[in-house]
């Protein structure tokens, strides 16, 4: 029997064992889940079907994943429609679906700021990033910035930004996954996190980006199907009168008509602005999203991928608005969903309870399974991006000066995928009792303050130099981490101080300009020989960036 077969069979046995343990052990079911609904058989069935289907995809993809190129970018053979759906899948995470609808449920209108913020970066990604990034890079966004800048110094900073964003995003996803699965399936936290880790290791090590892409596609379609079903049922139950949903929401919510106007959550205008900046520009520096631009054959496909992704996400966020307000109208007045005056599972579960309210256990089971599948797929994408950073950026480009042993590189890629996943799982278990909200903030702020400005100036500003990029990148990195630690989420909620040293949770409004200014000033004053070489190569880079010519000839310093 071949190795992929054995791995898949072992994995299936593991999951059957886990689920039979769950099914036979009511004591293990968390108190909240037990209070709300019995272990949902539909959820288990849908999830098992998803696991079987995605493992089959991984087995199929393993036959095509025999080189670094196929591992990192599926050989660049993904179509724009497939890639667009996968990108949408990457971004329509459990945080988007459960988080935004939960936020609308608790505070009303202010939750929409996150929906618009999440979408607003995509047009900018299409206009100024997609084509040039696709044409200048091969596997990671770091390739783009090293096209004309000095490889070693700039890769060190880019790797720092890339790895920290990936790991922090991964920990936030895994902790969220553990909590969500604990509630939805009654699976103990540690089992849940390990189960996610094992599955993702199989997807990634067997099928690389090809398997990850298809897992994302399946999950994105399931999620869109689920939310579409929910919205249809909401409209049918409200007799297609959206006005009545809002009237009921105002009637039952303790904040009454205040839920229809901004200011509940973000009373300070600067807070609203800095969140908008973090979300918009953070997206433009997320390594696992940028990496998807390399999975298509050319710049036209990259462009269309982003458009398809935005179309799907636009539809998704429009539905999320309806789901958010409908969850107030349908769930808030039903005592079955509450225990000790609190919504079972917290406000993030509002959409899941709504699915039960409008579609019964069947729809709730489906939505729960899709939420789990969502986390699996997002974690898989992050692992691919993280392993590419280590094996391609660090090993192949920095340690082997761009001439690695290809077989060894592929082995290192798979090994680093396992290591990153194991580290993520261990940290996910360590952080399980912590408030991880700040971990979820950090990746976006670091991506907006380190990766995005380096990428933007490297592609568009001729006078940009390596020294400017390194200095600005470090300023962005240090300032974003320092200000997050000094902010309310860490300084007050975790450290326990009475007042935060810095008043905002998302400091990108300050750290992004600081990084950009440092880059501009240092580059302006940089008269070194290497800076001149950086600038001389700009015209050549522009030609490659605009025409989609070969990317195999970056400038060697």
């Amino acid at each position, binding site marked *: 029997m071949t190795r992929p077969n054995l791995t898949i069979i072992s994995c299936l046995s593991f999951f059957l064992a886990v689920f039979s343990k769950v099914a036979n052990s009511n004591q293990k079911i968390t108190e909240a889940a037990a209070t709300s609904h019995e272990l949902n058989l539909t959820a288990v069935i849908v999830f098992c079907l998803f696991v079987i289907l995605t493992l089959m995809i991984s087995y199929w993809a393993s036959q095509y994943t025999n080189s670094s190129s196929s591992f990192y970018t599926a050989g660049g053979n993904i179509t724009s429609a497939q890639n667009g759906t996968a990108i949408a899948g990457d971004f329509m995470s459990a945080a988007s679906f459960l988080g935004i609808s939960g936020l609308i449920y608790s505070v009303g*209108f*202010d939750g*929409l*700021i996150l*929906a*618009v*913020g999440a*979408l*607003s970066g*995509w*047009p*900018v990604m*299409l*206009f*100024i990033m997609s084509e040039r990034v696709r044409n200048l890079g091969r596997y990671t966004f770091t390739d783009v910035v090293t096209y004309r800048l000095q490889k070693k110094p700039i890769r060190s900073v880019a790797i720092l930004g890339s790895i920290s964003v990936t790991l922090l995003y991964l920990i936030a996803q895994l902790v969220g996954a553990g909590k969500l699965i604990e509630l939805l399936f009654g699976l103990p936290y540690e089992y849940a996190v390990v189960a996610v880790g094992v599955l993702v290791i199989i997807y990634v090590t067997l099928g690389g980006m090809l398997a990850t892409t298809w897992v994302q596609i399946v999950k994105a379609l399931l999620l869109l199907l689920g939310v579409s079903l929910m919205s249809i049922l909401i409209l049918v139950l409200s007799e297609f009168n*959206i*006005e009545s949903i*809002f*009237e009921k929401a*105002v009637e039952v919510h303790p904040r009454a*008509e*205040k839920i*229809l*106007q*901004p*200011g509940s959550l*973000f009373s300070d*205008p*600067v807070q*609203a*602005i800095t969140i*908008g900046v973090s979300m*918009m520009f953070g997206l433009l520096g997320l390594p696992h999203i940028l990496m998807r631009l390399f999975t298509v054959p050319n710049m*036209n496909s990259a*462009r*269309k991928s*982003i*458009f398809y992704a*935005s*179309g799907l996400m*636009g539809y998704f*966020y*429009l539905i999320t*608005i309806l789901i958010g307000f409908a969850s107030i109208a349908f769930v808030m007045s039903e005592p079955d969903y509450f225990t000790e005056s609190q919504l079972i599972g917290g406000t993030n579960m509002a959409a899941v309870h709504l699915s039960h309210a409008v579609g019964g256990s069947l729809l709730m089971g489906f939505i729960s399974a899709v939420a789990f599948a969502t986390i699996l797929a997002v974690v898989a994408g992050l692992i691919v991006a993280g392993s590419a950073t280590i094996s391609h950026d660090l090993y192949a480009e920095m340690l082997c000066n761009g001439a690695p042993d290809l077989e060894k590189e592929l082995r290192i890629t798979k090994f680093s995928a396992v290591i990153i996943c194991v580290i993520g799982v261990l940290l996910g278990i360590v952080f399980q009792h912590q408030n991880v909200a700040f971990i979820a903030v950090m990746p976006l702020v670091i991506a907006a303050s380190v990766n995005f400005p380096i990428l933007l100036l490297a592609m568009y500003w001729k006078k940009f130099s390596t020294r400017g990029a390194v200095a600005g990148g470090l300023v962005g990195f240090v300032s974003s981490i320092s200000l997050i630690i000094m902010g309310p989420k860490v300084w007050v909620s975790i450290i326990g101080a009475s007042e935060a040293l810095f008043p905002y949770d998302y400091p990108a409004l300050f750290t992004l300009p600081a990084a950009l200014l440092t880059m501009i000033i240092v580059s302006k004053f940089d008269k070194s020989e290497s800076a001149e070489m950086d600038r001389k190569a700009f*015209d*050549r880079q*522009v*030609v*490659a960036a*605009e*025409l989609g*010519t*070969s990317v*195999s*000839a970056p400038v060697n310093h």
Partner: protein
Amino acid sequence: MNQVVSGESQVDAQIVRNSKQFHQLLIARNSIRYILTTLVIAIHGFFIGGIAFYNEWFGQPYKENSIIPNGIYFTVLVIILMVLLEFVYILLSEKKIQKLQDKVVSEVINND
């Protein structure tokens, strides 16, 4: 086409860079890019700025006998506008920019 930059010839890339056709392509594509990016940032800025400084307007009903406020319609409009602007970019890229790009390839690169 790969010869433009795949070889060691910096001169070839410089010829393309200095050509009138490439200049036209760059101006056209960058104009569209910068105008649309400015529009998106302005729309997002109006949305966030409106929420930050004019939140009462966002909370007012859009019309009489309705409870749905301006803010909800504005949010829906912003989401639709974002996708529409992307559609405009795709359309312009395929109908106009691609022709300019083909012209660079046929008149500058192939002739060279």
